[in-house]
């Protein structure tokens, strides 16, 4: 998504070390908090800490263990399912709202744009607390609606529905953010294109399909990549909901949760680092695949 601009011809001064005075501070901290931990976790993943014998080099043993770890793969499959269902719904909603606001036919569009975006500024912890309380049976809305209307809506915190309930929370948090990315991309479409289309007699739907959607491709790819990364990192929502829905959320609910449990409840740092690396690599592969697919269609 981003490498392409490198080739942009910029009239530049002679090559000199001056630029490092600006880039240097970032790179120093970057090396400390980004590259060193990555190197360290690769190192960790090649060792195992035993009660007897201490720290021992075990080669790729930890990776073999991940490959055969049913808990890890069930967690990975769960976020995969989450990704396949929640991300398209969220991006589709964001797309509809962006197109609606951009159509110029909305009353109070400034209000829409800002309000739909607001949940992005709400911490995931607070969003999950709010929705968790609303889902809950104690003073939750679901229970209240059931009582008032003598219904028996299913419990959103039950094992069968918990993933959908989490999907709803993340959709709520990020629809507005994605809408804004898409909307900003629509704003840079030159007005002449619309006029040309209208002179050709194209209707609104035709314009959306022929002009707006192609203009949105790049922004959609970026939004998808961020959503892929976000889904695979899922942690805060299940972690906060855990005490409200202890039966539905296991300690290996998502890969991240699993890595967290391994390190901080099980002290299995070496194996946790391996899990994190494998999940990081899977994330990058999927993100890269999304990018390739998005760009190929553009060509």
């Amino acid at each position: 998504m981003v490498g392409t601009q490198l080739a942009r011809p910029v009239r530049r001064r002679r090559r000199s070390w001056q630029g490092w005075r600006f880039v240097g501070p970032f790179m120093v901290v970057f090396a400390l908090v980004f590259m060193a931990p990555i190197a360290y976790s690769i190192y960790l993943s090649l060792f195992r800490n035993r009660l007897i014998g201490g720290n021992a080099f075990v080669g790729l043993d930890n990776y073999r263990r991940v490959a055969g770890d049913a808990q890890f793969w069930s967690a990975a499959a769960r976020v995969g399912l989450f990704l396949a269902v929640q991300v398209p719904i969220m991006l589709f909603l964001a797309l509809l709202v962006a197109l609606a606001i951009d159509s110029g036919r909305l009353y109070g569009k400034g209000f829409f744009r800002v309000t739909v975006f607001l949940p992005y500024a709400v911490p995931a912890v607070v969003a999950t607390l709010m929705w968790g309380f609303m889902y809950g049976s104690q003073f939750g809305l679901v229970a209240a609606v059931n009582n008032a209307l003598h219904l028996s809506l299913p419990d959103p915190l039950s094992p069968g529905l918990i993933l959908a309930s989490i999907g709803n929370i993340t959709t709520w948090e990020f629809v507005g953010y994605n809408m804004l990315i898409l909307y900003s991309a629509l704003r840079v479409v030159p007005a002449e294109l619309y006029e040309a289309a209208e002179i050709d007699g194209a209707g609104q739907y035709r314009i959306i399909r022929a002009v707006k959607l192609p203009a949105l491709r790049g922004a959609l790819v970026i939004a998808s990549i961020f959503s892929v990364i976000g889904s695979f990192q899922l942690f805060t929502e299940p972690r906060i909901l855990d005490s409200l829905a202890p039966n539905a959320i296991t300690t290996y609910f998502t890969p991240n949760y699993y890595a967290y449990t391994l390190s901080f409840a099980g002290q299995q740092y070496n194996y946790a680092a391996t899990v994190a690396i494998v999940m990081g690599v899977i994330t990058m592969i999927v993100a890269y695949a999304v990018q390739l697919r998005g760009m190929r269609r553009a060509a």
Partner: protein
Amino acid sequence: MSTPTVARRSTRVAPLARQRAPRRRRRGSITLTLLTGLVLLYTLVPLFWLVVNATKTQDGLFGSFGLWFGGGHFALVDNVRETFTYQNGIFLRWFGNTLLYVLLGAGGATVLAVLGGYGLAKFDFPGRRAVFAVVIGAVAVPNTALAVPTFLMFSKMNLTNTPWAVIVPSLIAPFGLYLMWTFANEAVPTEILEAARMDGSGEFRTFLRIGLPLLAPGIVTVLLFSMVTTWNNYFLPLIMLKDPRWYPLTLGLNAWKEQAATAGGQAVFNLVITGSLLTILPLLAAFLLLQRYWRSGLAAGSVKQ
């Protein structure tokens, strides 16, 4: 909205006059507004729920309908007072911690991203391509994959359970750097910098006097988004901090919620809810007040291909 035909005619009559023609105004559609209103409703219901329930006592929460005021006593003021005084005013301490982490973490991240983005956009230096490759690759690395090794590293350096454990990792925002780089490419003409150099202005002075003002919308955008990330961070402080006195708000609120589940713990859901409301107000206010800046920054920086 009142004169759509006039607007339409004027753009037809004077096609040469428009550089960036304002989009013609179409008639508003009530159907479309109502349909999009459903999404608006979806956005607002939880926030409304939060406001309503911040006015209820712990007992009132259980005895009244969640989406309307009631449950007897209107307890908003009491709740706010109790939130700030409960457990010797630890909420205020958490608030202060959050401010500290945001100020140093997000502030520092913005400074580093602005300097770096400007440097990448406006200088050619040995290793520039390598810097690009590494940083762009970093955008795709899940942050949480770094958390466990960072924790282990920091614990060897005796940094865990101190504010530095939260602040230092927050200083790096690869996406912020990327945003500033695209923004500097667009907003700072190289010719102006050349002219300043001809006049003998040093690089750093040129940056402060010329670059910085031109970059302002981009800086506000990066600052706001780093603020959100830092203010809302949960995973990093969760693993780094043991001592509640260093907790940020997100960790503290969850600790209050968990308190009900512990043996003999007092349920303080009214304080969790009121505290949540107090937690989100500053950021909502910042976003609303600074709209103009971050919207233009986002439009110019993040989506140009």
